[in-house]
Every structure is written in C-alpha cells, then in structure tokens.
C-alpha cells in the first residue's frame, strides 16, 4: 500500500482501514475529514479539490513516513480526494496503528495537521448564494478569487 495517494474516486473506508492492520498494534486511530454543509456562516453545496499531483504525492508520502519514524508507528496511510465532492463525502482519510493509544492519537493528528499545512491541494467551495471561491488555510476565501 502507498503511504499517501490522491484519489479521484470515493474513498472506501473499509479498504483503507486494512492498510494499517498489524498484529502488534493495540491502538488504531483514524481521521476522516468530510464536506460540511456550512463554512464561515455560508451554506456550502459542493466543492472541488485541485492538486499538484506530482508534489502532493511526494509531500504526503514524506509526511506519513516522518510520522511512522517520529511516533514509532506500525503502519500509517493517508488518502486525499481530488475532483468534485458533495456534502458528507470523505475528503481526506488518515489512519495509523501503534502499540499504544497516545502515539496513535498524536501521530494521526500530526499527519492531518501537516497535510493541511504543506500538501499542495486546494479547495474551491460552491455556496448556496451562487458564489464560489478558493480557500485560504484558515477557511476564508482568497480575495479576488470569487468568480
């Protein structure tokens, strides 16, 4: 299994979960980031993710590998959607397994934080009022990007 991949298809949680199986692992923590029906007080209908795939895959794999070493994980993997998503779709999945729960929680949190900070993926939200916009990391809309 790859450490990190982009997926143009819906993320199958059951399949991904098996990527982190390990007989010495007592603790499994998984994070799913899903498309919410609102952001910053505006009603969201759908969104698109765009990625610079070549760099996103390299950076994502670097982050997951770094977490495995830093937190002494048994397994870790992450998948991020690209393309068009609707409310409730899983946008990103991160799963880790460790001997103990402290490392598992900390590592899973660290990976999603790093992905959100570093991996070249961009979200374009489509609002109920007809607007859309590329988002800054803090969830606000990039000035001038409203179509």
């Amino acid at each position, binding site marked *: 299994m790859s450490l990190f991949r982009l997926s143009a298809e819906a993320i199958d949680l059951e399949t991904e979960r098996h990527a982190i199986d390990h007989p010495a692992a007592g603790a499994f923590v998984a994070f799913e980031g899903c498309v919410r029906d609102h952001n910053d007080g505006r009603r969201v209908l759908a969104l698109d993710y765009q990625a610079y795939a070549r760099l996103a895959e390299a950076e994502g794999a670097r982050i997951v590998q770094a977490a495995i070493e830093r937190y002494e994980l048994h397994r870790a993997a992450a998948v991020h959607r690209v393309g068009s998503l609707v409310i409730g779709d899983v946008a990103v999945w991160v799963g880790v397994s460790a001997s103990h729960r402290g490392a598992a929680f900390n590592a899973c949190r660290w990976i999603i934080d790093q992905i959100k900070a570093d991996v070249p993926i961009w979200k*374009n939200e489509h609002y109920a009022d007809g607007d859309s916009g590329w988002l800054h990391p803090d969830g606000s809309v990039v000035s001038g990007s409203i179509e």
Partner: protein
Amino acid sequence: MSVKILYFASLADRASCSEESVDTQSTTANSIYEEACLRHGFPSGIDKLRVAVNGSFVSWEFEVNDGDEIVFIPPVSGG
C-alpha cells in the same frame, strides 16, 4: 531557454490557464514569477507563495534550467 509553468487554484483563475510554456532570459524562480506577474497581474507577492521546480519545493533563488517545470504554490487548503 524554455520552461513550463503550471498554475493552480486562484493563480489559474487569474491566468485563465493551467499551464504555459515560456521562453525567458530569467534564471531564478523569483524572476520568472516577476515576469508572470507582468503577464497576468497576480496580486500576491512571493511572501505569500511557495515555489516548486520539477516536483520539489525550492527557494525563490533557485537557478532554473531549460525544460524545468515550475509551479507557484498559493496557500494550500486541503483536508
């Protein structure tokens, strides 16, 4: 020399394209971005962006070579 520039997100919207091939005398990532700003009127300075060459993040002083793939990276919003 000739380089390929890819645009994403707000930069692609502003450039009205996702990719262009550019003949240039510039040799650093920084100066190639300055030329792109003149063509497309990008509002952001390099303090708001990162730059990647051939799939790796590099500094703005990176020396670009003929045939390189250059990408200006707006603030990311994955997850």
